[in-house]
């Protein structure tokens, strides 16, 4: 964190959100006899800052804590410790009316468009809900805004009178986006917002989100397990593993010179088919599944699966340090390990790009 603050202290007003040493632990509910409860270390000391008008991507596998981070920012899960500074205020201290005021500027789009809409309310009423609850505008203005929002997400005004089950998955996700836009927020958290959609629909929604960002100057936190979507969509990327950020850098840098072995593995799994992919998989793809985040062992979280782990890695937890401006890596051996060489000549013509 110290590194973060010294390097990035250029101009504080650039940053809309500042997450500072965020910790979220849950009790598992399982109790072993004669022992204390065990804890899920869902998020374990995560810090990052999000620049106004940009998209901050968080990528990771199940159990990495990326969705819990999102929900903590939305105040939907109890936070164990840390700070979330939004518009210069720590929103973790807020409750009641001030918290509701903040909610106007902070909205979320969920993964599953089927469970994200109330099956018993009409679409228009659900988009209106934030306006009603937060007392925005007069009655007539609210109706007018609902109509305008539907148009902005590409749905006809009649959609307001339908129930969620009358829409397709992609259309439901458009409704969710319209609902998130209703109170005119500054920051929208997209928690795997396109993961449940078919690829053709996914592209429609990504284009829509980008267009809205352009037109409204929105800031996004974009959470996904899909590295290629993240690369396309985000300006800065944090790679999470078991509750910790292991690497963070601007998009331009992280796919040119990734420095953490886990990032290499993710890249190997997501590389487009071709000889480069085979080579990357052979050299960098880790074995096994992500371990459980319940009471993790000391040392580097990735040490169990890391092909380059040493004894030191298993004992001492590495800090997230800057290896150059804006590029942070949490790895003891960052100085010793060479990043993968992506042969640009071969990468330029993978099978799928010839169309």
């Amino acid at each position, binding site marked *: 964190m110290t590194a973060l603050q010294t390097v990035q202290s250029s101009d504080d007003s650039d940053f809309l959100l500042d997450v500072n040493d965020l910790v979220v632990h849950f009790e598992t509910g399982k109790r072993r006899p004669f022992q204390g409860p065990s804890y899920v270390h869902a998020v374990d000391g995560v810090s990052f800052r999000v620049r106004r008008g940009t998209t901050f991507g968080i990528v990771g596998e*199940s159990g990495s804590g990326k969705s819990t981070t999102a929900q903590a920012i939305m105040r939907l899960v109890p936070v164990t410790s840390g700070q979330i500074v939004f518009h210069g205020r720590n929103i973790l201290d807020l409750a009641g009316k001030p918290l509701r005021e903040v909610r106007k500027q902070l909205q979320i789009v969920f993964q599953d468009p089927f469970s994200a809409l109330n099956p018993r309310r009409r679409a228009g009423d659900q988009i209106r809900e934030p306006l009603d609850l937060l007392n925005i505008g007069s009655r007539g203005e609210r109706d007018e805004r609902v109509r305008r929002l539907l148009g902005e997400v590409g749905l006809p005004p009649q959609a307001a009178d339908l129930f969620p089950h009358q829409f397709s998955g992609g259309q439901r996700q458009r409704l969710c986006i319209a609902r998130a836009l209703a109170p005119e927020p500054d920051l929208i958290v997209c928690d795997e917002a396109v993961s449940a959609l078919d690829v053709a629909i996914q592209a429609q929604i990504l284009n829509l989100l*980008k267009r809205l960002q352009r037109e409204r100057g929105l800031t996004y936190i974009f959470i996904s397990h899909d590295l*290629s979507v993240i690369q396309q969509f985000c300006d800065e990327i944090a790679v999470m593993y078991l509750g910790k950020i292991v690497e963070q850098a601007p998009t331009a840098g992280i796919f*040119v010179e990734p420095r953490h072995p886990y990032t290499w593995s993710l890249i190997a799994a997501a590389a487009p088919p071709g000889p480069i992919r085979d080579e990357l998989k052979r050299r960098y793809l880790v074995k096994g*599944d992500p371990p459980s985040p319940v009471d993790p062992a000391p040392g580097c979280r990735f040490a169990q699966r890391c092909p380059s782990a040493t004894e030191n890695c298993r004992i001492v937890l590495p800090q997230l340090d800057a290896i150059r401006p804006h590029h942070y890596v949490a790895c003891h051996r960052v100085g010793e390990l060479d990043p993968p060489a992506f042969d640009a000549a071969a990468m330029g013509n993978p099978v*799928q790009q010839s*169309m």
Partner: protein
Amino acid sequence: MGALLQVESLNVGLRNGAGVVVPVIENLSFEVHSGRTTALVGESGCGKSMTALAIMRLLPEDFVITGGRIVLEGEDILSLSPKRMRALRGNGMSMIFQEPMTALNPLFTVGDQIAEVLRWHQGLSASAAHAQAVEFLRAVQIPALEQRVNAYPHQLSGGMRQRVMIAMALAGRPKLLIADEPTTALDVTVQAQIFDLLAKLQQDTGTAVLLITHDLGAVAELADDVLVLYAGRCIESGASADLVGHPRHPYTRGLLGCVPHLKLGQRMPAVWSDLGEIAGMVPPLGARGADCAFLARCRDASDVCRSRPQPMLEPIETDHAVSCWRKSEIAA
């Protein structure tokens, strides 16, 4: 060599509330050969999973096969007795599902579940079956084998469960393995491992694989032949490298264009350029007329397309067939 599985103009319908049968799959024909992988690709609602279930004769209630033949090694599956069909499932063909948690019985250890398959299909004794089960788990590269044999499904991670499912599907030594979205529910690094495993097992056993997926990346990596389905109709088929490299149908081209590809070693331009997108959505069941199913969403549609019915799937070159009126105009 003849095909292991031949599907000939398969038609599947759904009987709706009013008793009318609405087409779900129309005139689908393809072959699967031993040692090769054929992929069915498409978005949800295109009928790819229903095809798999029709082959296993496990279609849900209200779905009916209204025409066509499914032939596995010379036997017409659709006319078999339920008893013969049960024997065929497991020995002749088996299936792995998308969600391994719900496909395994939570009350039995994974070793017992695999051993049970072996006892049914190979008539092994309990101890011999158990020993074999361990071998199958070894073949799917499950670490810490001795403990895992006696583990219950809920004690395993998603990737391990899918490996168990694969071991179980292979235990009957099937000639055809149907893999319905085998990696969709798994983490990306685990997906890559499962792909490698499937490819290796196929090499070792010579099993024919029918891969059901929505992921064109998986197709390019695993499949030899591909069929692209749209609204229950096959609109393009061919060898996978050729089809993914040179798609000819506007839908296939659109589908490939809307998936972002990871670009490595090069700096991304800082300007967002919209992903290619296919406007609109797949026509729902019952709203599919006689004309080209993709017509309403097609950018290349012309008056020719509007005035004629769904085009036949016709070869455009060896091993590459397209169902499009403008196939010769839309160059590769």
